[in-house]
């Protein structure tokens, strides 16, 4: 990790705290809800940013991974497993201390998976599916890769819409809170849920996860493996010639970005106490791709900033019913006028000579 990135991370952490204090004092704490959600979507976007910008592999199916994470975690923590009590699976889960017995709203016994267990299973499943998908699909390039991942996203969307277990068009609601940390030394437990009392804690949890996720990716990019990734979209032949296993490298980064998306899905499902099929829609995947492009393909910080702020505006309903249209226009505008991302426009603010001396982030 170089010092510039260290300062940027500290700056981001400072900004996060400042925003929270600002909302506290101005009595606008309701903004925190959308800021929390934006941070989780930010996690999807930076994961996709590494895949697209650095490794040069396009995916128009990332909403699929988000949905796999969110839906599995929601279903496992919500649906009653009591009737399967004697099956081997359930007994194994019980042995692993991953089940919880409670009561549903009618007072009947309800046996479900504990959220952390469901989270592990959901993210693990998403990683496995990503692996199985990546091995054949990443042999494709350009348009063909785009079409294959688009197809994957569509399949996931259709499966969710048609499966009663996943609630068909209604999705899954009443997803229980996700307790991250138990009550310690007089402090209340840290719980991921949408309840009013937890708003500030959840805001910090979400941004904490996003910052840690960002740190990991920044370290990855500047490591030996990261350099290998970045070499992929210049020349695979040359990359092979210096000894990089290009196909394994591509599969690894694809799985990593799927894990980021799935993790975001899990947390958002618990935060919103539910998830619906629109989260898996193709337009969502397209939006993630657009946000990476708007931020700048090989600029992870730009991706983070633009991704989070545009998502926030969209969640606040600033674009109204024109939401998708606005994202379309932004994408076209960026492609035409600032193909290196919105932040590259700052060169018009800095005198040309300085800009030439200053090198952008790789």
């Amino acid at each position, binding site marked *: 990790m170089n010092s510039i990135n260290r300062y940027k991370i500290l700056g981001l952490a400072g900004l996060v705290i400042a925003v929270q204090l600002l909302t506290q004092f101005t009595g606008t704490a309701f903004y925190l809800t959308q800021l929390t959600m934006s941070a989780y979507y930010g996690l999807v976007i930076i994961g996709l940013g590494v895949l697209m910008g650095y490794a040069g592999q396009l995916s128009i199916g990332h909403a699929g991974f988000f949905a796999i994470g969110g839906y599995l975690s929601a279903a496992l923590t919500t649906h009653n497993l009591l009737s399967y009590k004697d099956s081997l699976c359930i007994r194994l889960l019980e042995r692993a201390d991953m089940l919880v017995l409670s009561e549903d709203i009618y007072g009947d016994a309800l046996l479900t998976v504990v959220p952390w267990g469901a989270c592990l299973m959901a993210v693990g499943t998403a990683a496995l599916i990503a692996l199985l998908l990546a091995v054949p699909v990443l042999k494709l390039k350009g348009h063909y890769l785009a079409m294959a991942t688009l197809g994957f996203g569509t399949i996931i969307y259709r499966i969710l819409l048609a499966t009663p277990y996943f609630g068909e068009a209604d999705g899954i609601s009443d997803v229980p809170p996700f307790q991250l940390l138990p009550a310690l030394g007089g402090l209340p437990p840290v719980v991921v849920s949408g309840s009013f009392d937890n708003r500030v804690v959840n805001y910090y949890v979400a941004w904490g996860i996003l910052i840690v996720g960002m740190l990991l990716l920044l370290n990855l990019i500047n490591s030996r493996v990261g*350099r*290998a990734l970045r*070499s992929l979209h210049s020349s695979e*032949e040359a990359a092979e*010639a210096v000894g990089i296993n290009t196909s394994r490298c591509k599969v690894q980064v694809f799985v990593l970005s799927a894990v980021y998306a799935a993790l975001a899905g899990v947390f958002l499902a618990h935060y919103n106490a539910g998830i619906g099929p629109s989260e898996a829609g193709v337009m969502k995947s397209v939006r993630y791709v657009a946000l990476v492009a708007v931020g700048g393909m090989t600029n992870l910080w730009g991706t983070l900033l633009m991704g989070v702020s545009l998502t926030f505006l969209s969640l606040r309903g600033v674009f109204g019913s024109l939401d998708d249209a606005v994202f379309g226009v932004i994408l076209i505008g960026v492609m035409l006028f600032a193909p290196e991302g919105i932040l590259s426009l700052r060169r018009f603010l800095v005198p040309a000579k300085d800009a030439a001396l200053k090198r952008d982030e790789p």
Partner: protein
Amino acid sequence: MLKIRNLDAGYGKLRVLKNISLHVKAGEIVTMIGANGAGKTTLLHTIIGLVRASAGAIEFQQKEHTGSCAQKIVAAGCTLVPEGRQVFASMTVEENLILGGYMLQRREGKDAVLRELQYQYDLFPVLRERREQYAGTLSGGEQQMLAMGRSLMSRPRLVMMDEPSTGLAPLIVREIFKIITRLRDEGNTVLLVEQNATAALGIADRGYVLEVGKVILQGPAADLLANSDVQRAYLGREKIG
């Protein structure tokens, strides 16, 4: 060092290389000349494992390497400077070189890579001047030097070069070939594939002539230079009288 026996390779049903045999001894420059489409690049790709051989054997450092993947053969000490340079354009010169030490870093750690980096900067001083620049902004000659430096970063035993003279001004070509000679004099082994037959045979110890996938001539470079068939076909000289 490198021994190839009765090698066949191609793409799908297309057989590009037919029954190729050749060898490279430690410390020599061996050149492979031939026209477009003769199979020169395919041969190098087969040796390094990007194209699979359908018959025959590749032996490197007394070890069988037929059908090995590129990682294995690179790890064993054989690298390729690809045709058209193929530097990593969106990375800096220094990052390109460090990436060339990808295998070295895994084997001996980061310090070894940094030491090797200084050595490459001494060999190619212009790269030191340009270390912070994106590789895509270099001139053709500088890119060729970068591609060579990148390959040398892994301290290979055998460097294979695919048409290093492509698209370069004659003056730069002379400089590149001077560097190749120097590499040999410092104890490296080079397999040089070229269309520029005069220049390649001028610095090589031995040579092979490849035509539509077959070796049609081989011998000491000086003999090939003097050979009338080679002169007519590749050097553009017609013996008069």
